[in-house]
């Protein structure tokens, strides 16, 4: 179908002195001309709208460069020594001590809550062992007003921002202090005050959502950024592709932070992808990308800080792939000895751990002693245990909360169902654990 260009009609009409029609058609013909590019086949350059590149006359497939992939940026070696002094962020002692204390507090909380699930006190738990550096390093590089979308293994981000232990515990115990009103499984944290969007179980759904939030935040003009965490497994989901593509085409101030920890439950990375990890996908979307040592809290900090600065200044997304290792099981429902060796896990626990690397950095500067370590371990454990005991004693939320927040308002049909449940429970009350719940 040859598109109308109106020029012929314009000439014919004006020739016949049908001026209104002729002028209108002439105007339209100029508009059509504007939309078309000038094509010049005398130039030996491709004219395709879809790609701008040179012609080549040798048949060659591009090698996906898996042998020497994207290099891993790091600041400290495995013993906590700074390799290139220009990369040392030179954070204050107070800041570095805070990093250390937050990472270790997280570790302590993980041990106690994992154990509490084993004892049947909470229904489920996921630890963050080995990935504390990715949480604290990135969280520290953000502004407190930046919006965080997570997957489920980012509790350290919330901890860094000051989420109280009582609130962590309340969510895991689903007690009456839970900000989420007892509706979700443990570790599905959220905090409006700390700009941490509530976690949901479906993987990667947060990725396109983060792009949308970043777009809205860009229009607000308040210099906020959005960060989106996900694992290397979730990056296989269609939603990840959607989120990357949208954030690039719509120019969103967004940091994609991939925790590549080697496993998606039992699935190792060589069964998750064949390309060079997640960082190599970034350029495919037109996105600036970097791979960092996730167990080096300073490398994570530096990369996130720079990505944030540029994302907001330039309104474009950045992809950070933080290489790390999941030392713990996927969750309390998993026993990872079924699919990996104890030796492998021990290597990471003993030889390349974010907490010990930072401790070596601190002790080398005389900022942390054996005594400091001992008393901090004791104090942090005591703090966690106290919060734990408080959470244990707390009643569960009022069962009325089963029915609220489905919609902003209560709807008649749901209200009827609510009333029907109460009548039923009144009649059969001995079969329902009412004493555990607030009235």
């Amino acid at each position, binding site marked *: 179908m040859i598109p109308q260009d109106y020029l012929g009609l314009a000439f014919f009409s004006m020739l016949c002195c049908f001026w209104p029609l002729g002028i209108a058609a002439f105007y339209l013909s100029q508009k059509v001309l504007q939309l078309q590019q000038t094509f010049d086949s005398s130039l030996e350059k491709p004219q395709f709208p879809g790609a701008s590149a040179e012609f080549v006359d040798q048949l060659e497939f591009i090698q996906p460069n898996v042998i020497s992939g994207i290099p891993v940026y790091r600041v400290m070696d495995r013993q906590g020594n700074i390799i290139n002094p220009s990369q040392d962020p030179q954070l204050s002692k107070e800041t570095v001590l805070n990093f250390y204390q937050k990472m270790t507090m997280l570790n302590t909380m993980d041990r106690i809550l994992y154990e509490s699930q084993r004892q049947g006190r909470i229904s489920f738990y996921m630890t963050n062992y080995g990935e504390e550096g990715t949480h604290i390093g990135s969280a520290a590089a953000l502004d407190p007003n930046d919006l965080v979308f997570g997957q489920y293994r980012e509790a350290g981000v919330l901890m860094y921002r000051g989420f109280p232990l009582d609130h962590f515990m309340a969510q895991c115990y689903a007690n009456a202090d839970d*900000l*989420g009103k007892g509706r979700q499984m443990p570790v599905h944290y959220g905090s409006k005050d700390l700009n941490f969007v509530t976690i949901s179980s479906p993987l990667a759904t947060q990725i*396109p959502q983060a792009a949308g939030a970043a777009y809205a935040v860009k*229009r607000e003009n308040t210099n906020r950024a959005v960060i989106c965490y996900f694992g290397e497994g979730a990056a296989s989901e269609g939603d990840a592709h959607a*989120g990357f593509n949208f954030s690039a085409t719509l120019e969103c101030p967004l940091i994609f932070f991939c925790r590549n920890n080697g496993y998606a439950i039992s699935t190792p990375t060589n069964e998750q992808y064949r390309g060079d990890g997640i960082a190599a996908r970034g350029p495919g979307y037109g996105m600036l990308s970097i791979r960092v040592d996730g167990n080096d809290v300073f490398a994570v900090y530096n990369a996130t800080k720079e990505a944030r600065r540029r994302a907001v200044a330039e309104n474009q997304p950045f992809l950070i792939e933080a290489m790390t290792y999941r030392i713990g099981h996927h969750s309390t429902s998993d026993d990872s000895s079924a699919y990996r060796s104890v030796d492998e896990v021990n290597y990471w626990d003993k030889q390349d751990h974010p907490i010990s690397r930072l401790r070596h950095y601190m002790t080398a500067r005389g900022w942390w002693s054996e005594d400091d370590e001992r008393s901090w371990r004791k104090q942090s454990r005591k703090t966690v245990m106290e919060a734990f005991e408080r959470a244990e004693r707390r009643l569960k939320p009022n069962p009325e909360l089963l029915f609220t927040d489905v919609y902003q308002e209560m709807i008649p049909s749901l209200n009827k169902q609510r009333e029907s449940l109460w009548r039923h429970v009144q009649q059969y009350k001995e079969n329902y654990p009412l004493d555990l719940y607030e009235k």
Partner: protein
Amino acid sequence: MAAAARLFLRGANSKLSIAPGSLGTTHAAHFTFQPDPVPSQYGPTQKMNLFQSITSALDNTLASDPTAVIFGEDVAFGGVFRCTVGLRDKYGKDRVFNTPLCEQGIVGFGIGVAVAGATAIAEIQFADYIFPAFDQIVNEAAKYRYRSGNMFDCGNLTIRAPWGCVGHGSLYHSQSPEAFFAHCPGLKVVIPRSPIQAKGLLLSCIADKNPCIFFEPKILYRAAVEQVPEDPYTIPLSQAEVLQEGSDVTLVAWGTQIHVLKEVASMAQEKLGVSCEVIDLQTILPWDIETVCKSVVKTGRLLISHEAPVTGGFASEISSTVQEECFLNLEAPISRVCGYDTPFPHIFEPFYIPDKWKCFEAIKKMINY
């Protein structure tokens, strides 16, 4: 001169062509659209068809709400059904923009916009293509408020999609997927029957603080023309409308099928002396149980009709609830006149759709039960 003008106008106008039938004639629709009376309570009105009434609602929204953004495939140039014509030029490319071709992305992105506090109006090009976004809609949008203890929500999200049969749409341009979403607490699902209804209901959906899906009967985009108020106005959600009162049978439908039932009501009156009460459900979820039950208590007979396949279609929910609430009032089994349990066919559409003769026959059976 006239021929030149016609040539000029056709090229400059719509991309929708009327497909010629196999015998060289155009297919007439299976109903005739009757406009509602001109509303007097909302100020000056203008002649608008359905897509223009949608544009008007979107225009009002972009004018009054600086956070509102409209996005989806091809919305920038005006949309494949012309619902967003002129809006990008008027309000800017940061507010009316194309997205990549990815429904799960469109809805996921829209959820994020809404969570960040802005008004998100997402367009899915055809309701038939909403399924890649099903996870985002059902697992995320619908549950956002509940699962976060009301700390977060995407009440600012409205999803619009063209819906229903169009004469030649076949499997993937004709679907009515409301039943899939009716099963999802936390969502609202709304379907207008006409331009006046569409603008008011769409504005209500946009204002509503819950994620809403707004299905637009595509066969009515050009065919339905009414005098529609220029200023914004809302029509309440979850309130069914009794279009005509009757005493013998209650007829319930939504969207395009309302126009079929209106004709059926005339046929029943004329040929059988049967007086029908016609109800437009408008909101599928949460639906107005009270209005429908009140009507059935009066008439004793209920017919529900929709294009979507009968098994698991929304008529089954209405039927089930009505028999629970009005069992002793029923004079006959509840009748469902719906699409068959097949994918939506192309050439067999005239046999597939729940047309007026099938509905008429069902009324006859109920009266003679």
